[in-house]
């Protein structure tokens, strides 16, 4: 391992620890509930985008159907809690495992597909799941599930008085997603994935088991995404198929990584930090009229950034410039 790379990784870890510590202190100064709400969403999307980035960025298998795993996580937690009284912590774990298992089952046939055939398959599968959930009466069908308030505690993962516990959980989630990526980046998996992304045929000929690499990326990515979904269900305490499994979630998970820098360690974080507050602010300040100005601003921004900086915004930071240009 060349020393420059090891040096960069050590610096990444230190920067991440400092940023996490600063982020943990922010709520001491920011008391406004509206702003805190945006901070929770920003951290959640950072975690989700980081998870998406593992499969689509590092391994190069572009999924526009991750809403499926997000929704499965949300539904598993909500259904176990409302129908069987199972604590959300177990629902979170269960949802993650179910999603990982489904990702493997779907990956088996889907990873034979390449390019746009694969992308469309991911969209179509998530849309099918959405339609099935909309027609599944036991799971609340199109009306969804109202998660009843049973207390205000970490045990039940419900907080009625303050948003802070959600904030700290989202922060931990984002840190875990970042750390998993950091750790995998330098593992054999990380090297396999980048080889598979760059040239699957060459990777195969050099002994990388392309299919298994993709399956591994899919399972990790789906697990983390589902945990994010479980968290979201507890955070908003009401879910319906469209609001947790709709196509817009698949996009919202992909966009931060794309804008920040796809297949990079910091891209999803940076992208989420810019995109999510911007989305929320345009929605509440100019979107209230219902006249679509928020969409115009948002869409124009996506066009401009993707054309002006195809390698992502992360390249603006010096010690990652080389990586982003690769």
């Amino acid at each position, binding site marked *: 391992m060349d020393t420059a790379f090891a040096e960069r990784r050590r610096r990444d870890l230190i920067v991440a620890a400092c940023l996490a510590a600063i982020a943990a202190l922010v709520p001491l100064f920011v008391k406004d509930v509206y702003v805190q709400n945006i901070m929770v969403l920003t951290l959640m999307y950072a975690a989700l985008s980081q998870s998406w980035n593992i499969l689509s960025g590092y391994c190069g298998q*572009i999924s526009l159907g991750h809403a499926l795993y997000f929704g499965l996580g949300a539904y598993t937690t909500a259904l176990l809690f409302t129908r069987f009284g199972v604590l959300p912590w177990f629902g979170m774990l269960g949802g993650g495992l179910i999603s990982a298992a489904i990702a493997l089952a779907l990956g088996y*046939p889907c990873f*034979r*597909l*390449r*390019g*746009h*055939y694969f*992308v*469309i*398959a991911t*969209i*179509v*599968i998530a*849309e*099918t799941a959405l*339609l*099935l959930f*909309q*027609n599944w009466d036991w799971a609340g069908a199109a009306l969804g599930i109202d998660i009843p308030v049973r207390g205000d505690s970490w045990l039940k993962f419900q907080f009625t008085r303050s948003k802070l516990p959600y904030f700290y959980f989202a922060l931990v989630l984002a840190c875990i997603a970042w750390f998993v990526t950091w750790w995998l980046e330098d593992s054999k998996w990380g090297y396999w994935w980048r080889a598979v992304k760059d040239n699957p045929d060459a990777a195969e000929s050099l002994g990388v088991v392309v299919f298994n690499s993709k399956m591994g990326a899919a399972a990790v990515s789906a697990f983390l995404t589902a945990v994010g979904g479980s968290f979201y269900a507890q955070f908003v305490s009401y879910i319906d198929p469209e609001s947790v499994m709709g196509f817009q979630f698949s*996009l919202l998970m992909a*966009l931060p990584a*794309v804008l920040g820098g*796809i297949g990079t360690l910091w891209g999803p974080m940076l992208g989420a930090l810019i995109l999510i507050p911007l989305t929320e602010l345009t929605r509440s300040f100019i979107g209230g009229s*219902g*006249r*679509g*100005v*928020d*969409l*115009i*601003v*948002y*869409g*124009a*921004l*996506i*066009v*401009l950034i*993707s*054309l002006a900086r*195809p*390698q*992502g915004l992360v390249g603006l930071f010096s010690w990652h410039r080389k990586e*982003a*240009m690769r």
Partner: protein
Amino acid sequence: MTAETIIQSLASGLLMGLLYGLIAVGLALIFGLMDVVNFAHGEFLMIAMYATFFLFAFFAVDPLLSAPLVAAALFLFGAVVYLLVVRFAMRAKANAGMVQIFSTFGLAIVMRGLAQFFFTPDYRSITHSWLGGKTVSIAGIFLPVPQLFGALVAIAAFGALWFFINRTDFGRALEATREDAGAVALVGIDKNRVFALGWGLGAALVGLAGAIMAIFFYIYPDVGASFALIAYVTVALGGFGSVFGAFAGGLLVGLVEATTALILPPSLKSVGIYAVYLLVVFVRPRGLFGSL
């Protein structure tokens, strides 16, 4: 379920399938030319429907007469989108695929926002057009006239497109640019011009479809989204890049949708389309008529 209901719904599925083919063929044409998937394709359909609606509402031009106008307007629009957005997306050195997806997708969001801003989110429809609401009975099967007309236009458009690609100079330039864009520059063909014309043509075809759809479908800012996914599935089913594949894919999608609606509740009718797509590509990863 009687034999008549089955034949009846298969017949309307066939008509709808031809229209799906017409919606999708522009996408297939552009992809075949330059390997780019236009993620704003549904929004092209949406503005064509609005154009038809406003020509009808303000100038009382029947959709039958405005269809060529709308197609011409969309031709210009498609060429402009290529020159202003896609041309630059093609230059991306890093993450080329992603840049194409998200630049056209961002454009789709802008177009939806603009439609909401200028046209409001209200549902609109064209009432009392020449063909609207009429049905015709052929051998005991009742067919809606607008869809029947649309199916005939779709067949004519596919015929014209086939002639155009195979029998005209521009068609040959298109084919040559698709084969090797670098080499055609050497013989004096401007790549950008061919691509702009390809985008114009693709947009004109979806414009034609939009003008016909406006006769019998509600018009609202998000209308494109519901047809866009069907169009992508149609193109992928037929095989990316294959114009004939889009035609065959459209027919298959229309028939599968009609069959699913007979068996499952109407809200699940798209599930059949999605299932058939997955089945086809799992067995044949390049679609029915696509090349590897």
